[in-house]
Structures are given as C-alpha cells and as structure tokens.
C-alpha cells in the first residue's frame, strides 16, 4: 500500500457519528468502509462511511471492548481511501452489495465471543461462544486471518479458529487480569499484557512464554485506596513488527479519580528495550488507543474530562488535538488518512489527517 500523504498538524474533524449511549470501543473494518463502535447498551453499531447508514449488531448482553476482523486487512487495500467528510450526506445510498465480505469477532464483559458476518445487511450472531470466566478485555486476529486470540479476567489468553470457532489452545501464565493481546506481524508470536504491566511474549508453536517485557510503569497499586490500576488499554505492533506499543496510565496519584498521565511504552522487538512517549503537556487521563502510522509517526488518544490525540515523531510529541469528549478508544483508518475516537457522549468522531482542506484544523 502506498504511504498516504498526511499532515498530523492538519488533523481535523471529518465527520461526527452519533449514538444515544456512551461508546466504549471503535475499529475500522479492513476495507475502511465501515466504522464499528461498541456502546454501553451492549450493542455494536456499524456506521457506513459511504452511505451514512447505521446498523445495530445485537446479541451481546454486556459491554463489548474487543473488536477484530478476519481477514485483518483487505487484500486489495482499503476500498474507501478517505472517509467522506462534508459530502457524506449528499451521497446517494449505495447499498451494501459492494461491501467485501469479512468476519467480525467481538468479545464482551460476560466472557462471550460472538462471530458475525460484518458486511451483512441484517447482521445476526453467527456463533456465540462462552470464552472466558469474566470479562473478555481484548481480541485480535492473526496475520493470516485464521486465528482469533482473546484475553480476559480469568488470567488466560485463548486462541480460536476463525472458521469454526473451535478452541485451539489456552495460554496460561498471567497472574492477574489480561488487558490486551496482539499478534506479531510475523505470525509466530503473540503478546499479552496484564493489569500489572507484564507483557508476555508467547511462541505460538509451543504455547510457551519466550520472554517477558516490562511495562510495569503502566501499573500502580494505590495504597490509599488499596486497589490496582493499570494494564495496556491499547496495544499494537508496527506493520513491520519491529516495535510494540502499549498505552495506559502512569504516575497515578489517585486511582479512584483517575489522576495520572497517559503514556505510550514502545518496545524494540529485537532487544526488548523500552522507551516512553509522553504528551508534552501536563495532561491527566488514560491512554486508550495507540497506532503506528505508515508515514512513521505514532498516534495515541486518551481521555479524562475531555479527550486528546497526540502525535510523536521519534520521541518528540509534535502535535496534539483536543477532543471535546473523553476518548475511550482510538482506531486508525486502514488508508492511514483518518482516525476515529469512541467518545463517552455517544459520539464517534472521525478525524481526517489529509493536508489541505477547506476546514480549519481542530482546536489545539
């Protein structure tokens, strides 16, 4: 895929999509045509960025935080290079017949995984699996699209066949809630990060831990409140697999008020060495999503009273964008031209990063 020409400093609101309930998670489908969001009403909502149509996916009975697709990337590249912006409402309804098929797997806080036909006009659960004892906190699909990984509060990572939903293996070793999971682009390894910031690197051929990476800076036991706060709220590999990024909260001085700072921890995949990406300003909140942009910068978003999006080149925080609501998740469009946040007020805001626009940049 060609590297898109984008300018983070021109990041601005493209379109704001509304749902009546607070949002939890968001992901673009592999083609880039759809934005899926999960909400506190236990539904998923699919926004068609071409037609503006909103479709509910009902079947979960609790909140959904895990959203993954198979195949994880469209073979022909993004079908929708740029999310429509001002033109959205003027487009004629295209129907869904042109949407390439894909499988959607979602995980909820009752421990269930549901398989869906992500492009279906009237979506229904294709498979509903009792996957974990307690919350499913994240799901991810393997680079070949054949396996989905899930992790949760039962301290386990589990692998499932995307095709038939059958369990493939259980990775045991974490001693607390597992917050996130990601496949290495090479396909043979998988990482999982728990509440205490322990990142386990699993060899999928043996189901054994190869090494542990230290993201404990994303965890704190608050002695005042006698409770733990931590975990990688967002976790992803760079496309070439050379770097792993985890984001969450650090420097917590009051866990029960969310007083701390967002942080991205980058691990060099070869030697496991870590470095930190911090917002330049003294922002209080939690990092909820992180992504590697193909142009070479890292983008993350987080939330507190309001949300924020940060951009880093190297370790330099080159830009920030204020988000008018607490950002509870962030997704990068597969074209690299846009990103979306899931807002607590029920709004999914799609930001475009394309240079040159009639619209003014978002407020800094």
């Amino acid at each position, binding site marked *: 895929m060609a590297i898109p020409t984008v300018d983070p400093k021109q990041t601005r609101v493209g379109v704001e999509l509304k749902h009546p*309930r*607070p949002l939890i998670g968001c992901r673009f489908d592999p083609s880039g045509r759809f934005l899926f969001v999960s909400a506190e009403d236990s539904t998923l909502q699919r926004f068609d960025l071409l037609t503006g149509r909103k479709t509910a996916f009902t079947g979960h*009975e*609790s909140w959904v935080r895990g959203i993954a697709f198979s195949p994880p990337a469209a073979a022909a590249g993004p079908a929708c290079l740029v999310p429509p912006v001002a033109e959205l409402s003027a487009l004629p309804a295209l129907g869904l017949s042109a949407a390439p098929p894909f499988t959607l797997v979602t995980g909820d806080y009752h421990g269930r995984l549901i398989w869906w036909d992500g492009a279906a006009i009237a979506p229904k659960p294709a498979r509903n699996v009792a996957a974990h004892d307690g919350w499913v906190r994240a799901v991810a699909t393997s680079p070949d699209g054949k396996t989905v990984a899930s992790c949760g509060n039962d301290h386990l990572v589990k692998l499932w066949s995307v095709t038939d939903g059958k369990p493939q293996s259980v990775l045991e070793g974490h001693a607390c809630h597992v917050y996130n999971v990601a496949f290495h682009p090479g396909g043979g390894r998988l990482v999982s990060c728990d509440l205490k910031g322990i990142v386990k690197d699993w060899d999928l051929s043996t189901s054994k831990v190869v090494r542990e990476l230290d993201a404990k800076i994303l965890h704190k036991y608050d002695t005042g*409140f006698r*409770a733990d*706060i931590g975990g990688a709220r967002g976790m992803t590999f760079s496309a070439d697999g050379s770097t792993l990024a985890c984001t969450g909260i650090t420097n917590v001085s009051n*866990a029960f*008020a969310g007083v701390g700072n967002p942080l991205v921890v980058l691990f060099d995949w070869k030697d496991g060495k870590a470095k930190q990406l911090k917002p330049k300003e003294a922002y209080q909140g939690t990092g909820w999503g992180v992504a590697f942009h193909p142009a070479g910068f890292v983008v993350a978003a987080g939330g507190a*009273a309001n949300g924020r999006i940060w951009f880093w080149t190297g370790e330099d925080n080159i830009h920030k964008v204020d988000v008018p609501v607490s950002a509870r998740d962030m997704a990068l469009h597969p074209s690299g031209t846009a990103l979306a946040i899931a807002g607590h007020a029920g709004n999914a805001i799609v930001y475009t990063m394309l240079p040159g626009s009639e619209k003014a940049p978002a407020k800094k």
Partner: protein
Amino acid sequence: MTRCNYACQTADHVVSRRSFLGAAAAGFAGLVGGFGSPAAARELSRSGKRVFTIFLHGGVSQLETWDPKPGTDTGGPFRAIPTSVPGIHISELLPHTARQMHRLALVRGLNTADDDHGRGAIIMQTGRKPEPGIEYPHLGAVAAKLLGTGKEDLPGHIQIHPGGGGGFNKQDAAFLGPRYAAVVVGDGKPPADLYRPAGLSTEADRQREALRQKLNARFAQTRRTAMTEAYTESYDQAAKVIARGDVFSIEKEDPKLADRYGRHDFGRHLLLARRLLEQGVTFVNVQHTNYDTHHENFDFHIEQLGEFDQPFATFVADLADRGMLESTLIVVMSEFGRTPKINHLYGRDHWSKSWSVALGGCGLKAGAVIGKSNANGTAVTDREVNGGHLFHTYLRAVGQDPTKNFYPNDRPIPIADPKASAITELLA
C-alpha cells in the same frame, strides 16, 4: 440513667503512665479504661446480643452489590445472579454471598439524602443527620453501653481497621464517654504491648506490679477518689485482657476455616471479628477500603468485592454453624451508594438518594427484601427509609428500646432519632 464520667479521664491518664511502667499491663489498661466500672455496670443490660458491622469505605455501589439493574442505562456490564432465596437477585460480583442470602435481608429503599463522605458516615453510624452543637454516639458505643454487662474482660466496642495503627476513637462515644469509645485494632494485630516484653522476666514483672500496687495503696490511703479507683480498676481489667490475649490469635483457628475466610487482610480481619464476638465482645466493626470509585468503578468493584465476597459469606455461615447468628446482628453499610449514572471515566459518583444495605441475624427476617428502587435505580419507589429507621431497627433487633433516653448531664436525649422508627417488616 446517671452520669458517670470519671473513668473517661482514666483512659487518657493510664495511657500516659505507659511511659512510666512501659509494660503490657499498663499498655493495655489504655484499651480497657473504664470498662466494667461498678456504676456503669448497674446501668447495663444483660442481653447476650452482639452487633457486627462491616463498613465499606468510600461508598459501595448498590448496583454492583444488592440492587443490580442489568440491561438498563445505569446497569453497567455485570449480570444479576440468583441467590439462595428464590426471586432475589444480586450482582454477579457476590457469588458466595448469594448462597447465604437465606440468612440475610436487604433494604433497597434507603435515602440518606447526603452525598458527603463525612456526613454520610455519621448518618449511617448514628442514625441521625449531623447537628450543630451536639454529637451523637455511634452504634458501636451505643451497643457497648446497652448490651454489655460491664463485667466483660474484653472491650465492648472494637473496630478492626486496615493498615497499621490503633488506639481510641473517643469521638465515637460522644456523650456516653470514652469507656464506650472504639478500641481500634490496626490490621487485626494484637494491641501493642499486649504481651510481656521478651526481656522482662516473669519475676521482674511480678515485682514491678507489686511495687505499683504498693504505691497505689499508699496513695489511696490518704487521697482515695473515684479517679484513683478507676485507675486501679483499669489495671485489673488490663490483667484480664492480657489473660485473654489469645483471642487475637487467629492462628489458633482451624487452617481450613482460615483458608475459607481468606488469608488476605480482610479475611483475617473477619476471622478475628468472629473470635472477638464469640468471646463476648459486644460490638465489632470491620472496615474494608475502598469503594470511592469515581474512576473505573467496574474494575475496582471487581477487585474490592472479590476480596469481600468469600470472607463475608464464610463469616455468615460460620456464625450460623456456631449458633451465633440468632444472637448477632450483622450489617453491611457504607456512607452512601453510588450514582446510577455512569460518568465519562467509567466511574460512579456519590449517591445517597436510592441505595441499599444488607443485614441479617438476631431474628431479622431472613430472605426479606424491604423497599424498592425504580427501574434504573435513580429513586426509591417503595418503603423509603433513612439512617434513623435503620438505627431503630438495629436496636430493636438486639432487644433494646430505641425510644428510651440517654441522660448525659441529666438531660434526656433519645437513644435513636425520634423522627424515625424501626422497619417493623424486617423484625421477626
């Protein structure tokens, strides 16, 4: 009821004498100062009833405990699960407690109308809204006064706090005086100086005590007062407590039972509470912290209630197995509940308008649910009660008449708020 406050000063003075004697007897005298004074004993009943409370600090969420609302806009991500009482559901975060519901009751129509931590705690512990110019005694002090015989070896009002520390909470007793004040046992550890220091031989300790008694007797020959009598009495009581020091030794419990309580702090504290109640302590409170979850309410309730659930269920079952449930009132309370509305940080804030407590034992109607909140828990729709109603109910459950008076300074003060009354549906 006559006023008798000389022993109130005793405690302070005896504590100060630790610097002189520095030994176990003097140390623990501070903890038992005033208990069993003859004057007080005359006023005390002999009910054999006890009170046990758990205070969930910060304000536990009623929606994640006793009054779940799954599938509503306020319900959050958790399920409601069935309990041992058909038709009663509580949060899935309390699976062990759910199996003890036939021994418990719920009040789901609580409106305490104050969202401040300090004031909320006072309302729940005194049954009254804070008033300028007067402080009312907390439930523990009231229970110690009304239910004790005055001849107990152990203090009548004990609080087990997480973390270290210890000492007195004198303000808890208000006008009842420090003899009914909470003795705070930090982290469930025996009070400091309970045991004779290792470097002090039995003979040296005996000689030292003999010297103390000789000096005391000489002093009393010419300057005997109520205060000096109280000093002496406190030392005698300290000796009794030291003799009963093993009550703090939870390692004497069956290890399998200790496992069921849990080897973590809260489990140890509840096991100690049961030992203290079993040994005749009139009132024991265990504090569990913290539930003030303005941020990530659901994660933190998983963690905190995960620690609470099994020990509490074990405690209830243990009391039942030992035949103590009929004579022990159990109350699980907070200073308030939490907002039905989920905030932008996945938190819940303070909410006193519609919340719940769990209670049981002492003849309360097991399996009862009194009061009701609306569909999404924002308001009480049936049998609204406040802290005063609960306070009346507690005292009625332990066989006391809450409409009687205390007489500090010969002035009548109703034991419980006269504007409220007991929840009679809950009383057997």
